[in-house]
């Protein structure tokens, strides 16, 4: 049986922990909302972009489209893999889930004899993968809710550059990240991101009346500038989604931690009261025993 003072001290500790986890939960909730707002704010641009491609793509001869470097499939000698996690822990199994998924994928590719060029975003991925035999070729910090445009650009250039650079470009690029379902559920996935699959391209069948558009410059050159931006935007959306997932996971983890702390405080208080009563009873017994002894003299 722990002494009264020990229990009291333990209750104090747990209460402090609960204060911290509650605060962290609130911060995460606020950031999650901002992240979700940003996902929503990014949607009009992405939708419009798809619409434009839909309009332009049918006007470009298919054989030219296929030859576009962002659509072209090559023999898989080297592939690029991007793993997106958070910089910090305290977000439950969020990082571990992504890393496990990524490792499975990476090891499978290695077993097939495919060379992998690895980009990690978020310190957790960098460190964890390095200690498991996958040092990153390039690593970045995770971007927060409101990242400076220059940082976003740097990440975009690195990822898209894997595929578009002139010297030894990779044949495919995959992204491992957690898809945001809701604040409690994030599903780790590995998506093939480049080359753009014909299916992932906005559909050919443009609904509604086909207007007679003037193009400046010609559709072919337009598609040339549209596609890289479409790709950039997809990367940007992956990053936004990862941010939302991260804060969702963190909020849930901290909420659970706060609940657990509350439960522990309840249990400890119960122990404390019992111990206190024991002590009082013991003391009373002593007094009564002493009194009886005196009276019987």
């Amino acid at each position: 049986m722990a002494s009264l003072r020990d229990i009291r001290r333990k209750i104090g500790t747990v209460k402090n922990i609960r204060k911290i986890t509650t605060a962290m939960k609130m911060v995460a909730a606020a950031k999650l909302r901002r992240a979700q707002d940003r996902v929503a704010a990014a949607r009009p641009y992405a939708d419009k972009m798809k619409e434009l491609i839909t309009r332009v793509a049918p006007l470009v001869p298919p054989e030219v489209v296929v030859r576009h470097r962002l659509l072209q499939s090559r023999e898989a000698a080297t592939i690029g893999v991007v793993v997106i996690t958070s910089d910090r822990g305290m977000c439950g199994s969020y990082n571990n889930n992504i890393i496990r998924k990524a490792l499975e994928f990476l090891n499978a590719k290695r077993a097939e004899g495919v060379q992998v060029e690895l980009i990690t975003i978020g310190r957790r991925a960098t460190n964890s993968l390095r200690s498991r035999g996958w040092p990153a070729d390039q690593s970045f910090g995770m971007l927060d809710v409101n990242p400076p445009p220059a940082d976003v650009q740097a990440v975009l250039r690195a990822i898209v550059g894997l595929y578009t650079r002139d010297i030894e470009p990779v044949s495919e690029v995959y992204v491992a990240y957690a898809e945001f379902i809701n604040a409690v559920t994030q599903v780790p996935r590995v998506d093939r991101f480049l080359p753009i699959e014909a299916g992932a391209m906005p559909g050919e069948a443009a609904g509604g009346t086909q207007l007679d558009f003037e193009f400046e410059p010609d559709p072919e050159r337009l598609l040339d500038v549209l596609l890289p931006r479409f790709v950039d935007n997809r990367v940007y959306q992956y990053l936004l989604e990862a941010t939302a997932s991260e804060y969702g996971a963190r909020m849930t983890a901290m909420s659970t931690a706060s609940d657990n702390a509350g439960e522990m405080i309840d249990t400890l208080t119960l122990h404390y009261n019992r111990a206190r009563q024991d002590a009082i009873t013991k003391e009373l017994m002593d007094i009564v025993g002493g009194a009886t002894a005196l009276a019987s003299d």
Partner: protein
Amino acid sequence: MPGTFTLEIVTPERLVFQGEVTTLQAPGLDGLFGVLHNRAPLLAGLGPGAVTYTTEEGETKYLAISGGFFEVAQNKAVLLADTAQFGEEISPEQAAAELTAAKALMLTASAGPTEQAERQAAAQTAQARVAVATKVRR
């Protein structure tokens, strides 16, 4: 009263502007162009430069963009910009400093052709930012 058309300016981060305007000027890839009411359907690529539009109330606004796309059909125009900043949001001193830096970087050698193009685009964007920042303050 000149005819108006609906203009929407969107960047990946936010909806920058939405409303009725009477005129618009944008830096097309092949040169500056203007749009008025009842423009024939057009889809254009935009380079770095300044976008100017006049709202229904007759207010003229200046925006610096670093490139994007423009579409107009049936008096509905959408401008997709990679980045867009109003002249009011740009500090002329800072923009001027950025322009000097971008120009200096452009002149340094040992860059690949893509990198050189990127630097040139950056310098053009900086140039647009300076132009736009000074225009609103005149």
